[in-house]
């Protein structure tokens, strides 16, 4: 009987459903991202705008460091900082606010009422984050090169460093975004809860201010969080080697970048998996 056939088909979720719906989530997430003007301005374009302002304002200032015939200029120094800000804003700030809003306005409950797997939802968010972050980073590098004459490294190792720090940072900030999204209790408080935390961390992590000028106790605090290490990793990839004299200890410590980001990513994943709720608790 046809009725039975339909019933049977209904009951069977085909294999590959998670991947297929996950890919469709990426499509839907990107569509929504592009149409949300606040996401475009405060997440996507913000680091680029900030870079243009910093690089223009400080372009006439003396280089931060001169060793022999090598130098580190302000526009050079702010490029890795803004790259780090971009990944951080896209992950922690934008995902955090977005998921908090979706949980509090009922969007997540509606998804929970369907056969959509949680994993497919996460694939959608991560896909959106990866794609928008790559485009954002490319845009930032293009502006730096074309408008401010920054020279990008030519050694493949440096690009490899940039790549692994970038993707480890994406994963780390994505799970932290999921975690922080559990805190706001309403749609209207989502941005108010997330943005101050994000802003404070950027100030103490060498994003807006050079890390070396911060007092030691603030550096110690910042170094417990992942953002300062993302900046450190990006600087090691993009700046001339002499820039290490501007770092704490006057040396690059990429293993610490991997350790701190990895630890935060693992801890964040566990907390995210335990605390994630489709719906807010009544």
């Amino acid at each position: 009987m046809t009725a039975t056939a339909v019933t049977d088909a209904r009951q069977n979720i085909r294999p590959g459903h998670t991947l297929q719906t996950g890919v469709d989530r990426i499509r839907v997430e990107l569509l929504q991202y592009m149409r949300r003007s606040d996401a475009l301005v405060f997440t996507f374009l913000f680091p680029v705008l900030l870079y243009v302002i910093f690089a223009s304002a400080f372009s006439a200032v003396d280089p931060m460091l001169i060793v022999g015939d090598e130098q580190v200029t302000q526009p050079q120094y702010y490029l890795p900082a803004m790259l780090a800000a971009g990944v951080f804003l896209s992950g922690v700030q934008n995902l955090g606010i977005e998921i908090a809003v979706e949980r509090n306005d009922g969007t997540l409950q509606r998804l929970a009422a369907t056969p959509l797997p949680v994993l497919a939802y996460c694939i959608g968010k991560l896909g959106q984050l990866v794609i928008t972050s790559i485009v954002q980073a490319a845009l930032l590098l293009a502006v730096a090169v074309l408008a401010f004459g920054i020279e990008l490294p030519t050694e493949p190792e440096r690009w490899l460093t940039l790549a692994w720090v970038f993707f480890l940072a994406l994963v780390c900030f994505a799970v932290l975004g999921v975690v922080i999204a559990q805190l706001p209790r309403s749609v209207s408080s989502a941005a108010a809860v997330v943005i101050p935390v994000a802003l404070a961390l950027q100030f103490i992590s060498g994003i807006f201010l050079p890390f070396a000028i911060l007092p030691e106790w603030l550096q110690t605090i910042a170094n417990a969080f992942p953002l300062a290490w993302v900046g450190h990793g990006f600087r090691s990839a993009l700046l001339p080697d002499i820039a290490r004299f501007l770092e704490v200890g006057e040396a690059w410590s990429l293993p610490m970048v991997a350790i701190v980001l990895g630890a935060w990513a693992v801890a964040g994943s566990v907390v995210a998996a335990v605390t994630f709720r489709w719906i807010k608790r009544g």
Partner: protein
Amino acid sequence: MSTAPAVVVDGLTKRYGDRTVVDGVSFEIGRGETFALLGPNGAGKSTTVEMLEGFRTPTGGSARVLGVDPRQGGRDWRSRIGVVLQSTGQAGALTVREILTHFARVFPASRDVDETIAAVGLTEHAKRRVGKLSGGQQRRVDVALGIIGRPEVLFLDEPTTGFDPQARRRFWQLIRDVASDGTTILLTTHYLDEAEQLADRAGIIAGGRLLALDAIDRIGGAEARTPIVRWADASGRQEVHTHEPAAVVRGLPGEPDELEIVRPRLEDIYLAMIDAEPADEGGGSAARETEEVAA
């Protein structure tokens, strides 16, 4: 196909601390039946439905939807139920067709997207963003999302709140069409006419307890449907409950003012029942007077 009831609720209870929101509610909904859960705000309707949808864990009793405990319901079970929540999730940036296309891919045996858009009367708005639609149109998107997966059981939680009368009638026709496809429907509403229009059976719930459970035209019992004769004379308005209204009218002197014979409708029976509940805010004092006169 199984003839077991689509929904079985037995002694379902939900407590928050010492506050009992749902108190030992039991009912069954047969396959293909449309069942209305009626009650004032805060009666426990939505909490009951959310336990059936698997969103809340009962404190006591049991619930089965399509034979499955909703808390254990996996993706296969989810693909057989449709949910229209009370609050609208604002996926406002997507167009009607985009969001329906996405949901159609999430369910394994979905309805055709354009047919579904047509069924809810939104064809001409298919390319508009959901956030730009009126409240009633957004609600129809909610319903479209609820039925896109061809559910066997559809939960509708106060679906027409905020509709104008015309939109409500169009919506009723849509629900009748869905019901005639064999879909089992659980509807919560505080519009009594909606229940009369759509439901085969109803339960009346107040203060978390099920006060009545029967076919729409029998709920409250035969006695509650005793015709009422009303008129006015020199000493004020009069009212008599009688099974022989014609005889009562013949016995009246002359042509009394405001003479009418009414059979209590669901709404009168409902108000009398809700009003007899001590705990809740007393709304219809008229119903109480009716009882006193009748006594």
